[in-house]
């Protein structure tokens, strides 16, 4: 089976200009049936346990489990997610 790639455009999501904090939105996480997304701090984030939304982002981690249903693409208010294979 071809490998799935789920890309998130970070210039739209998790950025001050979008006005949406990925921790508040999290719609892709919520809608994904196999829960392949992870919401995490940047590895470079300092100080730790920061409340600054700039340090948080969403990554599609479990790509092998993606069923390509496209629910995340529909749910994203910023149109930042692309699923391709």
């Amino acid at each position, binding site marked *: 089976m071809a490998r799935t790639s789920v890309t998130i455009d970070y210039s739209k999501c998790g950025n001050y200009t979008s006005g949406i904090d990925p921790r508040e939105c999290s719609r892709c996480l919520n809608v994904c049936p196999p829960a392949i997304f992870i919401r995490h701090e940047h*590895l470079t984030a300092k100080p730790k346990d920061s409340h600054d939304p700039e340090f948080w982002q969403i990554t599609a981690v479990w790509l092998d489990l993606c069923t390509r249903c496209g629910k995340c693409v529909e749910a994203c208010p910023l149109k930042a997610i692309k699923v391709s294979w």
Partner: protein
Amino acid sequence: MCQWCMKHGAGGKWYLNARNYSNELAEDMNLEAYLTEQWMNFETVYIRKIMGFSSIGLGYKLKMPIIGRLLRWQAENMIHSESPNRNPVRADGHFGQVIPVEEAKIILSSLAAEPIIQNYCMCRMMQRGVKDVCCINFGALSGVIEKLPRFIPKDTRVRLGREEAVAAVEEQNRKGRVATVWFQPVPYVNAICSCEVPQCGGLRLRNDFGLNTVYKAEYVADTNPDLCQGCKACVAQCQFSAIRYSPTLKRVLVDQAKCFGCGLCRDACRFGALKLVPREEVPGLIGRY
């Protein structure tokens, strides 16, 4: 009994050995610094590297011919690490086992070290963006989590008495969640979680990638064909697809090879047709955790 009972069980099950809960053990292992580092960085655990390979798309990487086997070996080593220089940010030495709710109650009512706290489930926050007061942590971990505001529930009390903790885990079980007990890090025991597939990090690695982050319980479900009425109430409870209804036989069938022994199906059965039997009494399942 599994290999961890042999090692840390003092002749019994590892999670029923009082030594694994003791404050002295936590002090000996200097756990406060380790757990603080682990919990501060917990959300990043799945994007860290294993042997230089990013965990993103892990399933594909584990299937690669030679590198995949090396990766799996290394990941298992990390998960079960008892070495003094294990790495807290990768949550080395953090793994657990499914337990039926009655054993979770025994742990919380007599073994767990004070203080006992409840906090937001890290896995559900990380993988679903949902804040759910569910995990019960105790001993050296409680003080660590209390200093990290993102895990602290807003509307409910953080610290629990023993009876309240028992009631909380029973309530989660009624909702259909699987009780699990965790080494963190091995051999110190400090958490009882109420997990749910697929948004549990531990069960995800076990079910989808075959890594032993969560072991199956010491028990396995067994049906009594004479008592089963075929109402299918248990089928809806199983998180591991181990039960299905057979229209031919007009009763349910348990796939014991898939069963994790959590006991949710037994609690759902109104006719007493399901019970938990020790895993070691089923010949085909001895030693298969």
